[in-house]
């Protein structure tokens, strides 16, 4: 039996694995799941008598999981207990950057707001597409550096946070 922690949404969830023949039994809280590996990136499990084929891949610290056509993200907790997030340095989680240069469409928070992990912070338009920028840690908004209509690059933080302890 091997147990480990994962981050789902804002929560840390613990799971314990055990091998049962050629399947894996996983316990999460009260629930138990039996998985049959069926090749690279695929597990099969039985839901209400029908096989449910689940896809999973680990990429850049995130487990992408397809269940019932929904894409879910599970991460491994970083040292400070938060998900690593793509691209961010651990020490920079208090800053919210645009992932690509673009124009601010909307800022969704104001100074002083309480912010949860992965909360939507701003919408940035790039090449006619709108992109939602989310927080990589929970905290309180310390500064909002841009307004709708402003051009942003990827170097200047749009929003700065004071992180929760």
């Amino acid at each position, binding site marked *: 039996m*091997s147990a*480990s922690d*994962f981050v*789902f*949404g804002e*929560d840390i*969830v613990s*799971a*314990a*694995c055990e*091998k049962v023949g*050629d399947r*894996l039994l*996983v*316990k*999460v*809280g009260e*629930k138990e*799941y039996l*998985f049959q*590996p069926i090749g*690279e*990136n*695929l*597990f099969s499990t039985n839901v209400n008598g029908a096989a*449910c*084929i*689940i*896809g*999973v*891949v*680990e*990429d*850049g610290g995130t*487990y*992408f*999981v*397809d*269940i*019932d*056509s*929904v*894409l*879910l993200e*599970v991460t*491994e907790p970083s040292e400070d207990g938060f998900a690593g997030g*793509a691209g961010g340095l651990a020490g920079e989680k208090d800053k919210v950057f645009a*992932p*690509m240069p*673009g124009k601010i469409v909307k800022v969704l928070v104001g100074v002083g707001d309480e912010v949860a992990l992965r909360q939507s912070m701003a919408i940035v338009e*790039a*090449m006619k*597409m*709108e*992109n*939602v920028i989310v927080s990589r840690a929970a905290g309180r908004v310390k500064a909002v550096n841009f307004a709708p209509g402003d051009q942003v690059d990827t170097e200047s933080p749009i929003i700065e946070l004071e992180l929760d302890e």
Partner: protein
Amino acid sequence: MNKLFKKILVANRSEIAIRVMNACRTLGIPAVAVYSDADAKSKHRLQADESIHIGASPPRESYLDIEKIIAAAKQTGCDAIHPGYGFLAENPTFAGRCAEEKIAFIGPSPDAIALLGNKVASRTKMADAGVPLIPGMKGTETDLDVYREAAETAGYPVMIKAAAGGGGKGMRVVHDAEGLADAVDAARREAKNAFDDDTVYLEKYIINPRHIEFQIMADHHGNTVHVFERECSIQRRHQKIIEETPSMALDYDTRARMGADAVRVAQAAGYTNAGTVEFLYDKSGHYYFLEMNTRIQVEHPVTEMVTGVDLVIEQIRVAAGLPLSDHFRNLSQRGHAIECRIYAEDGEDNFMPSTGRIACYREPTGPGIRVDSGVTAGTEVTIDYDPIMAKLIAHAPTRELAISKMIDALHNYKILGVKTSKKFMVDVLSHPEFAAGRTYTDFIEKNMADRKLDMEQFRELAVAVAAASSFGGRRPQAAAADSGAGRVSIWRSVGSWQVGDLIHE
């Protein structure tokens, strides 16, 4: 097989470029891809027989640059260009430049493109040809009284539209006489800004119609046929996401009348090659000509599966001057086909664009399943282009079976790393109103507005899967990067799920 062309340049990218190159291979014609910086490692480039770099990632500097495309065709000795859809496909200047260079443009003539691209001019033309139009003004006017009179005759609500319109710009719905003047002014200003042409006109606003279109194919020998309808009423933000054929709304007679009108539209425009005549079909069973799209349509595969034709191969044949293939003289619909567009967007968050790297990619297979895809494992989905990644098509003897097949195929389509609307589409397809065929353009607004997926229900299972996949200390890792050059390292290190420990421990 006699080669219809020496070599064809495909002036497009992603799934439609790959679809066209597939047709070229079947015909034994080499195909040349063009690609921008962002597409240096893209599937369409790497599958081509030859490829030419045409510039930076912004479309204006590459896929929309007429002279670069023409130069690429001349450099590689191409005697034909297939424009796909979007980009330069409906640009009469581009079609004209091809003609000047004696390169066959695989599509209609520049004149037909220009005529059908102007909503007012084509409306006038089609009125003369006797095609049913949305009640309203026949041409454009500047006198507000003419608008007022037309609105009274048609009945409110009405719509002000830009002649050069597209993408919802220069469009205003007016609910009563009071708002009319302001709406006309606003539409004019917007049209001027967007298209440098302030021509607008008025027509009745058809409330929640069905969107039904007819596929047209016409050769240079006077033969014009329709290849039946597609219903494309399931839209979000005016963008189609699910299309099907046959339409549940049409009986034999209506289909025949609409098909004949669609042929009339094409003939009135002097149309050749593949095109699509769009109609609105209202709840009382009236239909109205909306516009003609002068290109191969995104949703053409449903027509192919139900009628057994190959529209892209036929486009190439027609462009080479051949008459329509024999089987186009004896067309029939058989079974039912549905297409789901797989966009990089978050179906659980208001269809917000989604970007990222496709770390794992598995297409569904099975009888009657077709996937037209522009991506593969390792593709970086960026914000440079249209977010369509692939199209999933299911064909079965009946609509009920096609729906069931499609739902199964959506579940078995694994695109890990980028969000899609797969689950949203499963829910549309599973909705009793969809099953009943009550598909109107407000379907999503009306039936899906309250939909809210509880992500928390997946908490334990998702964590369990992550735990299972990391069991034994090894992770199910992402595939090699095949595309999306430049931005993130596309030559990332690659691994694979090692499960040796499970047994050998």
